[in-house]
C-alpha cells in the first residue's frame, strides 16, 4: 500500500495543495478529478519525486528495502514526452538504459514490451509518423519498461480524439489486468474515472483540498457497456452533485 499523508505545497505565497491524504491499495487505480490548474499535476510530480512537498510524506508500506518509491510517468502530451529523434523502439529502450547495462538483455526486454503492446509494425517509426493513440500507447510502453512501483498518468487520454481515447482506455485496462499495478490517473472526464478507477478523489480549486473520495465497485474486468449501468449512473450523480455544490 502507498500512503499519501498530509501533503502541503505552495509556490511562494500561493498555496497549491492543502493537507492532501489518501491511500492507494496494491493493485488499485485511483482517479484524481478536479478543476484545471488545481495542483493535481503538482501532486503527481511530488509522488514521482520530481518536486518537493513543503510538509507531509509519501510512504510505501511493506516494501522490502527502503529505496525511494519508483514511478512510471505518462504525460498528457505525447508530442513532448516522447522524443522525436528516437524511434518508438528507441523511446521505450530509453527507460532501460540506466538500469539494464547489457545490450542483448535490454533488446530482449524491449521486444517483450513491443509484443505486449502489439507495436511491432510501428517500432521503427518515429513518434511523429504514427497516430496520437499509438504515440500515447508507446508512452505507456515506456512506463511499463520502467517496471515501477506505481504508474502516474497525467491526463493521458485528453490530447486524443474521443474514439482514440476510448480505444486506448481499453488497451490500457487490458494491460493493467495482467499485472494489476497501482495507478494514479489525473482526469477531467467522469466517464474515464468511472471506467478506470477503484477510487475517485474529488479535488477543489486552488488551494486544492480533497472534497470527497468515492469508491467505485463496478466489477472488473470492465467494459464500456457498464458505463450505462445503474451503478455507474449513481456514481456519476454523486460526482456531479459534489462538483456542483462546490461551484455554489
Amino acid at each position, binding site marked *: 500500500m502507498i500512503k499519501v499523508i498530509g501533503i502541503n505545497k505552495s509556490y511562494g505565497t500561493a498555496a497549491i495543495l492543502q493537507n492532501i491524504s489518501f491511500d492507494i491499495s496494491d493493485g488499485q487505480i485511483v482517479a484524481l478529478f478536479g478543476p484545471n490548474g488545481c495542483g493535481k499535476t503538482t501532486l503527481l510530480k511530488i509522488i514521482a519525486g520530481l518536486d518537493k512537498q513543503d510538509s507531509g510524506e509519501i510512504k510505501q508500506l511493506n516494501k522490502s528495502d527502503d529505496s525511494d518509491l519508483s514511478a512510471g*510517468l505518462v504525460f498528457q502530451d505525447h508530442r513532448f514526452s516522447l522524443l522525436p529523434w*528516437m524511434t518508438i523502439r528507441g523511446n521505450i529502450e530509453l527507460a532501460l538504459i540506466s538500469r539494464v547495462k547489457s545490450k542483448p538483455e535490454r533488446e530482449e526486454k524491449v521486444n517483450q514490451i513491443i509484443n505486449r503492446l502489439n507495436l511491432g509494425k510501428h517500432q521503427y517509426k518515429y513518434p511523429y509518423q504514427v497516430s496520437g493513440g499509438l504515440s500515447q500507447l508507446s508512452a505507456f510502453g515506456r512506463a511499463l519498461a520502467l517496471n515501477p512501483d506505481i504508474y502516474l498518468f497525467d491526463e493521458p487520454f485528453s490530447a486524443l480524439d474521443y474514439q482514440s481515447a476510448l480505444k486506448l482506455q481499453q488497451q490500457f485496462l487490458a494491460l493493467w489486468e495482467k499485472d494489476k499495478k497501482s495507478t494514479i490517473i489525473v482526469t477531467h472526464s467522469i466517464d474515464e474515472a468511472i471506467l478506470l478507477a477503484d477510487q475517485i478523489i474529488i479535488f477543489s480549486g486552488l488551494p486544492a483540498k480533497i472534497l470527497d473520495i468515492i469508491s467505485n465497485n463496478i466489477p472488473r474486468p470492465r467494459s464500456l457497456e457498464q458505463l450505462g449501468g445503474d451503478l455507474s449512473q449513481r456514481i456519476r450523480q454523486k460526482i456531479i452533485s459534489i462538483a456542483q455544490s462546490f461551484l455554489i
Partner: protein
Amino acid sequence: MSNWKKQLIIILIIAWVWFLLAESEILPVLLFPPPQKIISAFWHLFVGGTILSDIGATFMRLFIGLGIGSLLGILIGLSTLKSKGRSGLIFWIDFLRSIPAAALLPIFLLLLGLGEISKITLVIFSVTLIMSINTIYGIKNINNIRLMVAKNLLLNTWQTFSKVIFPEALPHISSGLRQSISFSLIIVIVIEMLVSTEYGLGRRVVDYHLTFEISSMYAVIILIGIIGYSVNKIYVLLETKKVHWIGK
C-alpha cells in the same frame, strides 16, 4: 512541368534576350559580353585556367573556418547549460555580431599578418558568434516535460545531455550552421578580394576585373553562385535527413 525545368527555360530566355541585345549592340558589348562568350570563358576557366586551385583555396578557408568556428561556438553555447552568465554572454555576442565582419578585417590583418591565419581566423570568429548564439537559444528553449522525462527514466547527467538536451538543441544548432555556411562564403570571398593572395575565387573576380577580361569575370561570378547554391542545397538535404525532427 517540374520546377527546375521552368527555371531552366527562364535561364534560356534570359540568355536569349541578352544575346539579342548584345548582338544588336543595344548593350555595350565591353560591359555585357554576349552569353556565348561567357560560356566559352567558363570553359576556359577549367581548361588551362587556375580555377581548380581557386576553388580549392576558397573551400579550404571556408571549411577550416566553418569546422573550427562551429566547434568553438557549440562549446561556448553549451557552457551556458547551467544558465550562469548566460544573459551577459548573449549581450557580448550580440554586440560583436552587430559589427560587420568585413570591418574587423584590418584588426585581424594588423594582429595576425597578411597570411592565411588572419583570413581563416576572421571566418572562425564570425562562425563562432553565429554558432554560439544559436546553441544558446537551442538549450534555452529545452522543453521542461522532456527534462522531467529524463529524470523519471533515471538518466544520468551524460545520458540526459546526449539523449535529451543535445538532440533538442540540434535543430537550432543546425540552423546556425546553415546561416554560417552562407555567411562564411561571403566573408571568404570578400577577404580574397581585399587581401592579396595567389588563389581564391574572390581573387579571380578582382583579377579579371583589373585585366578587363569581363567575360571571364562574369564566368567566375556565375561559378561562385553555382557553388554557393549547391553547398546550401547539399546542406539542407543533409539536414532534413539527419535532423529529421525539425518542426515535428
